[in-house]
């Protein structure tokens, strides 16, 4: 006990000079400047510069009409899939979110948790699960006694993207609806509006910014997804798959790869900017009201029908297909594959090695983010550089998640090899840092936002120096969020496939678990059959599942 307090005292003594140093405005400025410089030079510039460096490779490709046509249709497919799927997700996810927030029953918690499943499962595993469910004999096809209900290709890609974007919409809208002040809707109802009318004319227009950002996030995720898409794509090509194919052909076709990456980067940024600016100005069809019709739709029976339909869609297209990930894995328990796995025999040696690589990279990326992401979050939430710069930074922060991850990976890998000639592992860490940076900074910014600035003001007037305020007020009040943010970054990184594929040459010795698994799933025979693949997927799911369980427990502590 006394030992503990003496350690505390020592730490206090070490930190005191830092406290005093922080009283100097210049010292503070330097800290923030470092965070900014890191952001600009490591996160913002590389993805944009990388492809631009190699733009001279494009010329040859443009001469080849067959390649250009292929690239064109792949890019168009990407945007078409992303738009259609995100809209469908919005339509299907909104009623579910509504239902989760507004219905008051214990069993809603189950739906709430189930809606997170596609989140919890790494996308590669999700792709595998969807593949098994829709197109393999163990799934629904077997039940219907047909070879394959939906074989790999465009249809399956849509089903996959629908499933993994669904929880994004539900999560964002549940959060927004929970913090939405219901008084507006109640006011509408006291004025005679039926619940549907009030929702349509009041709540949804007020929540429009959230709807737009949920749509955008789903859109970007769909545009970006590579690993799982590769699993279900069959011969079909969208943007990321095109790049992946170009990468894995021997020798890699750099020209087409750079071309498609460049187009994807530019277009996705443009669309993101366009929707973020125009989205909030969109007008809802507010004015017109159909009192009787809407009243009929608001009665308990219709509401029940709507909720039922939302739940059925959720079950058939999201929950059940996602849960199929466990099936082949369970079979593995009965046929002895488990024993082989734990002895590390044969392919399993490579598997465990790749899992280790995944976690080493993820830990390193998380640490980098903790160091430089946190000050950035402070800069953004406390508007250290004025309102306008803050708004700009806020937009720039989203770039890494806006750009499709393979394209980002291609660009970054070109950049880092051109400049640093870094070992592959280092490049990989940097790439993962970039990819997870947005998530971390946004999560931290939300956490800091929830701490009233007044608390810091009071601490200052009570004699605390800025750094002292930071460690005695801000850190204790956000520590759980920091921890859960870190774990989220870790999981995201472990899950990442697209950019990783782009960085690691097809012949590379280093492999992360998801990259390895994509190969396994596409070619089960090479590793000894479906049950080996299933078990490999299951282990990956379990590790992420544990991490996310930790987040939930930690966040519950905070409340």
């Amino acid at each position, binding site marked *: 006990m006394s030992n503990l307090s003496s350690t505390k005292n020592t730490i206090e003594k070490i930190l005191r000079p830092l406290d005093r140093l922080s009283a100097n405005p210049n010292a503070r400025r330097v800290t923030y400047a470092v965070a900014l410089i890191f952001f600009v030079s490591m996160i913002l510039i590389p993805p944009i510069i990388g492809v631009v460096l190699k733009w001279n490779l494009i010329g040859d490709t443009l001469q080849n009409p067959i390649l250009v046509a292929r690239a064109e249709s792949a890019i168009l497919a990407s945007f078409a899939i992303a738009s259609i799927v995100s809209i469908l997700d919005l339509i299907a996810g909104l009623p579910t979110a509504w239902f989760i927030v507004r219905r008051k029953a214990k069993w809603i918690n189950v739906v709430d948790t189930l809606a997170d499943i596609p989140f919890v499962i790494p996308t590669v595993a999700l792709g595998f699960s969807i593949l098994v469910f829709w197109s393999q004999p163990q799934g629904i096809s077997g039940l219907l006694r047909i070879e394959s209900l939906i074989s790999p290709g465009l249809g399956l890609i849509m089903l996959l993207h629908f499933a993994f974007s669904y929880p994004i919409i539900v999560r964002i809208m549940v959060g927004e609806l929970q913090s939405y002040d219901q*008084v*507006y809707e109640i006011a509408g109802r*006291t*004025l005679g509006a039926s619940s549907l009318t009030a929702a349509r*004319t009041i709540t949804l227009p007020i929540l429009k910014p959230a709807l737009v950002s949920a749509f955008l996030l789903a859109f970007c995720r769909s545009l970006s997804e590579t690993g799982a898409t590769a699993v279900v794509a069959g011969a079909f090509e969208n943007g990321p798959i095109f790049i992946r194919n170009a990468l894995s052909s021997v020798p890699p076709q750099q020209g087409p790869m750079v071309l498609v990456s460049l187009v994807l980067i530019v277009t996705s940024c443009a669309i993101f900017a366009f929707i973020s600016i125009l989205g909030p100005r969109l007008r809802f069809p507010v*004015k017109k009201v159909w009192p009787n019709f809407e009243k009929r739709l608001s009665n308990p029976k219709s509401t029940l029908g709507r909720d039922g339909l939302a739940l059925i869609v959720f079950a058939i297209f999201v929950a059940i297909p996602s849960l199929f990930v466990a099936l082949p894995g369970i079979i593995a328990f009965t046929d002895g594959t488990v024993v082989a796995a734990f002895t590390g025999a044969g392919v399993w040696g490579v598997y465990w090695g790749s899992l280790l690589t995944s976690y080493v990279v993820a830990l390193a990326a998380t640490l980098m983010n903790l160091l430089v992401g946190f000050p950035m979050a402070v800069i953004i939430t406390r508007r250290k550089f004025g309102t306008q710069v803050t708004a700009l930074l806020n937009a720039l922060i989203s770039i890494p998640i806006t750009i499709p991850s393979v394209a980002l990976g291609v660009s970054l890998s070109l950049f880092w090899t051109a400049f640093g000639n870094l070992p592959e592992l280092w490049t990989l860490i940097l790439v993962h840092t970039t990819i997870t940076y947005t998530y971390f900074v946004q999560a931290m910014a939300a956490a800091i936002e929830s701490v009233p600035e007044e608390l810091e003001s009071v601490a200052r007037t009570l004699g605390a120096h800025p750094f002292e305020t930071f460690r005695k007020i801000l850190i204790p009040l956000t520590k759980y969020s920091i921890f859960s943010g870190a774990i989220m970054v870790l999981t995201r990184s472990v899950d990442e496939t697209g950019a990783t594929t782009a960085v690691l040459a097809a012949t590379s010795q280093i492999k992360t678990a998801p990259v390895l698994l994509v190969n396994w799933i596409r070619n089960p025979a090479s590793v000894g059959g479906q049950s080996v693949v299933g078990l490999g997927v299951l282990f990956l799911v379990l590790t992420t599942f544990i991490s996310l369980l930790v987040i939930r427990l930690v966040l519950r502590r905070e409340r």
Partner: protein
Amino acid sequence: MTTVKVENLTKKYGEIVALDKVSFEIKDKEYLAIIGPSGCGKTTLIKCMSGIQSPTGGDIYFDGKPVKDLPLEERGIGYVFQEIALFPHMNVWDNVTYGPRVKGWPGDRAAKVARELFELIRLSVREREYPSSLSGGARQKIGIARALASGSDLLFLDEPLGSLDAKVRTELRYEIQNIIRDLGLTAVHITHDQEEAMSVADRIAVMKAGRIVEIDEPSKLYSNPETLFVSNFVGEANFLEGIVTKVTDDTCLVESQGLSLSSTEKSKREGEKIVVAIRPDFVSMEKRVNNGEGFAGYIENQDFEGSTIRYEVVLKDHRLFTIRLPQILGGLAFNIGDEVNLSVKPEHVLIYPYPEVGVQKELALA
């Protein structure tokens, strides 16, 4: 024509009993205020009455018809919120015409009603302005216009002035009352400000811990409250503990630490332990010339309150006694240190049985 009847209304939130068998009636065109300390169940009461929340038990009747199972939007009421809650995405005009619109009224009828209401609230705002550009007071006026636009005769107001500046609050409360009077509405107005309640209401219901402890006209509640709690909650009072020494036909004599006072209160037994409550406004004070028998002391403190002056007098037994004198009645004629005689008319000496939980607990505001 709107009357309201509430019977045994009960609302529980898990263990917490927010409303405990509340019953009362409101007459047609009556203005009822509900006051009580924070958390006593005021908001819960009108949320249950308006249908925003469903009660655990009891019945509610509007014009004699049960409405308990009617959904909120079909009860035909107006509701004014403390948060004001104007729809931020609609301009002032769309806010006010929202009610008529969702009821499917033809456009010209809605416009006519809105025009009349803008006239009534006497507000010079442009109809295309958005709520965020208006001051708090103007916003709440629009809030009232919006609540009235669909033509309901029953208006609920939950702390309509709570989010406004003190000065705006006093001005607006009279305007609100005038509008409600002119339109002949029945109104239920919640506030935690007793003066606001007294100045606008026909009757006031005082709540405490989920029950209505007293419901009466403002002047009655002020000058002759039935319970010790109300005597403290509605206006300030001095409290003295004592016993009844003598009871006659129309007065009784009480004694408190050697101080003897007579009161017009009846139905007290000799020897009963009681608490005396005396409002600072009903005490008169004069400079002392004799050697000060009885109700006397010296001035320890003087606070200038504007129209009135508040004095703290230390009585002979060292108890502190508060007195408030209007400026026009020579309220400024005294100084700190002055020796004074106090007197209070028997009808202003209020007497209550000594509460079982003790005076402090009984009067507690939280």
